């Protein structure tokens, strides 16, 4: 016989169930109303992924479309050591990986036994290595792709291009100057994923497409750039110079056809580069140009009708100005000479004579007109302005020294721009390296910018004739190119020391010239710092010009203008 349950206990049970039901209902009601958002967010977060879609960095090409820099996703090798296996399996894997990664098996084994749950064994592997490792099918290893900036021509044009660091930020050269433009705008993708990490076709999907970086087409010509770097290295090896640089400009619009600096570096392996090698000595470095400035001084004097090419003076080997005596190189005297012969002999005393006729104010004014003492405005990072001291700070002797290129600091690029003025008939153009930019809106070509007109066309033509004579009959005879007219001038400058004096027995040798002289297609400036052959370093500079000019004329298919 069962014992009857007392109504009181039944009521208690009922009340308990009722309370529990009420509480649960309230809780459910809360989650369905007030707490719905939190619950939904928590659930969505478990399946939703929010990704940054990286933009493709812009491609850089030369004027003929040759690839100079591009970004390619390369495979990075990662390991999950626990999944590789036991100690024996890890040692075996390390032995197989080491020769492909170009390291020791101990190093790989140490990485696998480091205790990390997940680690990169090597980032951005060459594709061949990645394929070889993939073929090994070692458990616990995997690949992720990461973007890598590649430069197919290795160190070619390194100082123009610059490089991209591991964070994807462009530095130096074009990569630094045009970083924001090349980088583009990253996009965003919010999407729901299934347990296998695949995107759900039906579900939340919000995407903002990335805007790829702008592609750049340069004024650089790979063939001429290759020639320039080859002959510059040849000169550096021959002269054991501490540094060297070459600039090749198209005088008709200021386009940079080639630009090289030595020592150089590989933009793909900047970590291994000497910090000194990162400096672009053609753009960011200045020096006292020496006798190459005589052409500028004489151009100013002729433009002011202070002298003519046939004006004569008696060269006694030295000239006195401001109470100081300035002499020709090696103390030579040339007797009665014309202004043209000043260039042919590279006579310092003659340059002092011309400057005296011109005057300090005019010389200072013309230096500014030719672009010295201020940045050219080239679209490359870290350009140096050089130095032309204010006229008020000039001592009387400065008129004489600056006339032959001492007491003034210029960059090789500034000197090339100034010679381009003489080559193109009197117009100073802003040098530029980006010929066109291509983005989603199409191609935008760079228009040449004429900065000024320092001298008249007649003056420029006169100087061309005088500089042709300097090459044909004078000191610059080593720059002669068979079947072509060449105009140019050598320069040998002393190097100032920190105490304001000049260093004994150390020089900077240079040559500035253009060809064909009657219809110039390019201006070349070559600078060698501290050549081993000292005063004879200009011979190497001239032969370097000749070699570069021959290659460039051949590449441009320029017809000979001489028999």
């Amino acid at each position, binding site marked *: 016989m069962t014992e009857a349950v007392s109504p009181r206990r039944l009521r208690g049970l009922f009340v308990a169930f009722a309370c529990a039901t009420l509480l649960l209902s309230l809780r459910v009601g809360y989650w369905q109303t007030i707490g719905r958002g939190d619950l939904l967010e928590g659930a969505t977060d478990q399946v939703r992924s929010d990704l940054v879609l990286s933009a493709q960095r812009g491609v850089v090409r030369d004027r003929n479309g040759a690839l100079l820099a591009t970004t390619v996703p390369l495979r990075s090798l990662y390991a999950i050591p626990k999944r590789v296996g036991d100690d024996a399996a890890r040692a075996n894997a390390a032995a197989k990986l080491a020769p492909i990664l170009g390291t020791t098996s101990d190093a790989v084994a140490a990485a696998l036994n480091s205790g990390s749950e997940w680690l990169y064994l090597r980032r951005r592997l060459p594709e061949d290595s990645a394929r070889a490792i993939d073929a090994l099918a070692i458990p616990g290893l995997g690949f992720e792709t990461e973007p890598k900036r590649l430069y*197919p*021509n290795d160190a070619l044009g390194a100082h123009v291009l610059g490089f991209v660091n591991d964070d994807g930020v462009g530095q130096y050269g074009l990569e630094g100057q045009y970083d924001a433009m090349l980088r583009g705008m990253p996009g965003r993708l919010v999407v729901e994923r299934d347990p296998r990490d695949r995107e759900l076709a*039906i579900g939340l999907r919000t995407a903002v497409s990335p805007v790829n970086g702008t592609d750049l087409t340069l004024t650089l010509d790979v063939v001429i750039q*290759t020639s320039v770097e*080859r002959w510059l290295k040849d000169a550096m090896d021959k002269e054991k110079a501490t540094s060297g640089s070459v600039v090749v400009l198209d005088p008709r619009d200021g386009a940079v056809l080639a630009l090289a600096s030595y020592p150089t570096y590989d933009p793909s392996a900047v970590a291994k580069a000497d910090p000194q090698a990162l400096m672009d000595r053609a753009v960011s470095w200045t020096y006292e140009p020496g006798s190459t400035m005589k052409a500028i001084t004489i151009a100013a004097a002729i433009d002011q009708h202070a002298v003519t090419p046939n004006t004569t003076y008696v060269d006694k080997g030295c000239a006195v100005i401001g109470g100081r005596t300035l002499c020709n190189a090696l103390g030579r005297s040339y007797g009665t000479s014309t202004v043209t012969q000043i260039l042919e002999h590279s006579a310092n005393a003659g340059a002092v004579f011309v400057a005296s006729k011109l005057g300090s104010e005019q010389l200072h004014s013309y230096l500014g007109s030719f672009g010295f003492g201020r940045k050219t405005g080239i679209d490359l990072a870290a350009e140096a302005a050089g130095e032309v001291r204010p006229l008020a700070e000039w001592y009387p002797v400065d008129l004489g020294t600056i006339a032959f290129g001492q007491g003034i600091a210029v960059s090789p690029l500034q000197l090339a721009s100034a010679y381009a003025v003489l080559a193109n008939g009197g117009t100073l153009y802003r040098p530029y390296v980006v010929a066109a930019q291509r983005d989603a809106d199409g191609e935008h070509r760079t228009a040449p910018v004429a900065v000024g007109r320092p001298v008249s066309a007649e003056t420029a033509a006169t100087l061309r004739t005088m500089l042709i004579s300097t090459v044909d009959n004078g000191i610059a005879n080593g720059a002669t190119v068979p*079947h072509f007219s060449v105009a140019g001038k050598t320069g040998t400058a002393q190097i100032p020391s920190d105490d304001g004096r000049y260093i004994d027995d150390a020089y900077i040798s240079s040559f500035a010239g253009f060809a064909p002289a009657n219809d110039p297609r390019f201006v070349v400036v070559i600078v060698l710092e501290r050549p081993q052959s000292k005063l004879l370093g200009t011979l190497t500079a001239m032969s370097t010009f000749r070699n570069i000019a021959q290659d460039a004329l051949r590449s441009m298919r320029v*017809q*000979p203008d001489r028999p």
Partner: protein
Amino acid sequence: MTLSQAVRTAPVRRTANLRPRHAPRVQRAAARPRPRPTTWELRTFIAVSGAIACVFVLAILYLVQSTTISTLGYEAQRLERVRDELRRQNALLEVENARLDSPARIDTEARKLGLVRVATIPVVQLAPITAKR
């Protein structure tokens, strides 16, 4: 009448000729009266059945469509991965092509083959020739 009764009940014609004339009235009176489905009931049954069938078919179609979209979505993702990999390979080939086209490499290879650079390239001047014609 319930819907289940309507399903079990056969349709009845409204005609007296079918009933046997000799059947005793007592028997008829004693028999349990079976409700006869009306046209309204039948139509309702058919309509509801049809609606259920339509909903079922639509649900099936929706499921098929969803499954197809999902499958196609996964296939699209697979194809996107293939496309990305092909683009990557193409970019790598373009880099390799640029490396092979590099004048410095060609110069080095030419030297290995014993080739030398020509000093001058003879050019025929067109102007004197055309002047003579």
